């Protein structure tokens, strides 16, 4: 499925609560940093950076924010630059940094085997078809031989969505209340909403 994103919460923006009692100082500090200090490329090569951008644009398409998409690749680059793991590595996978470098190269290699060109050069429908094949482990390139395609896809997707759904723009679009401390919530029941929560459009 592609096309436009349909918001259920028109007019809502979690950032409007910035100065309200829902946001404490430490949260403002953390989110300000996320919004203002988008990391530079330090870990990936230019080629890897380009391919991963193209992958993110399919896994989390943002046609509604063509000018200013939520940045994802820079935060993955930062994590890898700092070598900050998640606390586990699947036995079948190489160490984190190597997994990303080899995985991204394998996505390109898979596209070359199938379509004779790198991922970023493909039209959207072929990009999606290739990603879906990789997601299901249905791969042809030799590069996957000791890198399980399915697992790599799963790890990559999890990382990408983690960064996207940690961005206020994503909180806004799903109608999440956002940061809530010191003020929490009062109305907890079915169809109950505090005045500082998103109100949903009913069609």
């Amino acid at each position, binding site marked *: 499925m592609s096309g436009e994103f349909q918001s259920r919460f028109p007019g809502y923006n979690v950032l409007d609560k910035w100065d309200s009692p829902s946001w404490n100082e430490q949260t403002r500090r953390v989110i300000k940093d996320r919004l203002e200090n988008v990391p530079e490329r330090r870990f990936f090569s230019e080629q890897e950076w380009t391919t991963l951008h193209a992958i993110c644009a399919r896994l989390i398409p943002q046609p509604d924010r063509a000018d200013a998409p939520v940045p994802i690749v820079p935060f993955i680059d930062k994590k890898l630059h700092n070598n*900050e793991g998640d*606390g*586990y590595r*699947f036995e079948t996978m190489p160490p984190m940094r190597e997994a990303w470098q080899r995985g991204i190269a394998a996505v390109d290699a898979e596209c070359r085997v199938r379509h004779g060109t790198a991922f970023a050069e493909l039209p959207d429908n072929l990009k999606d078809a290739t990603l879906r094949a990789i997601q299901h482990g249905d791969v042809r390139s030799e590069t996957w031989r000791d890198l399980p395609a399915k697992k790599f896809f799963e790890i990559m997707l999890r990382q990408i969505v983690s960064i996207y759904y940690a961005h206020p723009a994503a909180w806004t679009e*799903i109608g999440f209340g956002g940061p*809530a401390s*010191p003020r929490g919530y009062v109305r907890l029941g079915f*169809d109950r909403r505090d005045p500082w929560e998103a109100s949903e459009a009913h069609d």
Partner: protein
Amino acid sequence: MTDSPRAKDGRAPDVFRAGGWIPMRCHRDQDEVDFVIVGTGAGGGTLACKLAEAGFSVVALDAGHFWRPLEDFASDELHQQKLYWRSERITGGDDPVTLGSNNSGRSVGGSTVHFTMVSLRISPDRLKSRSRLGYALDWPIEPEEMWRYYAEVEDALKISGPVHYPWGPPRGRYPYRPHEVNAAGLVLARGCEKMGVAWAATPLATVSAPRGRAHPCVYRGFCAIGCSTNAKQSALVTWIPRAIAAGAEIRDLAMVGRIEIGRDGMATGVLYHREGEWRRQRARNVVVAGYAIETPRLLLNSACPMFPNGLANSSGIVGKYFMPQSNHAVWGTMEEEIRWYKGPPCMAICEHWNYTHAGKDFPGGYCFLSQGPLPMEWSHSVAGSRGLWGMELRQEMAKYNHYAGLKIVGEVLPQEKNRVELADEEDELGLRIPRVIFGYGEEDKKLYGHAIRFMRDCLDAAGGKDIWPEEDTAHLLGGCRMGTEPANSVTNADGRSWDIANLWICDGSLFPTSAGVNPSLTIQALACRIGDRIAAMASRGELSHPARAFA
């Protein structure tokens, strides 16, 4: 966030005041303290308090930070990853367990700093599952005694719970009144009523009324990434301040790499890394409370010529019989707005299948709870487990406020092949990292199959649409199980290792069976009991004799 220790030079952070300090008694490394404790979570934090209150000198070390929640905890999932154990571990087997944020904390207060506060007792029959129900094995402690310690912990944490708890033998009133159940919990209630089974407001370790300097819960819903208001009764704001007041010393950012053994085969203290250097704390007794992966890892990493297979391991089962709990879920959308981000994530519970045997084709038990994942965690389910991406993912995520879900805490039976062992790789301190091997058994699969069917019907009866299931695990138990026989357990019922009389274990790794309830109340009850037992043994002069003599 600071990267140098806070608890030193005669003071420790005051968890109830931004920038605040409290006085703390400090020991020198060369002082031989009565007890050094490795880890300050549900097991170690509780025991530090009990032992200090009994008059022992105690130093408790934790690899993690000593937080002041009021100033250190942001309302942000990514930032709060700082609460989790994120050093490398390898996970494998037929059903590799997801680690990190899924189950492992690294802070003063341990995993209770980010736990979701569900505070349940294991049913008496499940504590004696072999003799009463014919499966797995018995705990080496009488259920009546465990239930007395549950009451002690419930009072210490001022658990907020229902006036009448529908399952099991009668229990006293919970100290604080129950919380108002949120819509996500009311979905469970509605479903259970339609299915003809009981439900209850979950007994929770977050206060429903003021307690000292802790405010009541404000239903902000960020519990799993740390409670910034101190309503949550974690070890960090309960046992730890009590321990310090009673004279215990807590050392933060202190990673223990090795337990040292003297020529007589007794433990002499620990080697730990703090402020860039390796140091040695001497002690008359060593307690390991690092949770089900780090505890066996430390025992195995402490191998020495006298104990070449690791400490306390003459049985060869250190690290074995490791058990996650199954944590399978069903998710569906509701007509109503649920907004499950409000309130603690698990406000309603059904323990029916822990207490009923009819209609089951497996021996274990499970409970199920209502849910309230934050957006990032929820995206892991929708993208990770369901495999959605692209605009389809964004559009599905936009139903966030209408989703409801039910999730089990399921008993996984002990199997020798499920284990924690050492990998050949080393961490940044040169310590071998753990490898965790896990695969479900047939009975475990039947259990979660049953749970998914039952919960699907329940959610459907409550009005859920487009229901889909998810596989997951939670809570790590076993690996150093207690028992009555030195040949098939690591410690006796007091957490005292069979092989080394002054080496103790006090955490989730002691569990012989996992049971179908969240474990932290039980870990704390065990710690209270171990503390009392140690004090009693000391008064009888039995501390210096080997455990086997008193088996």
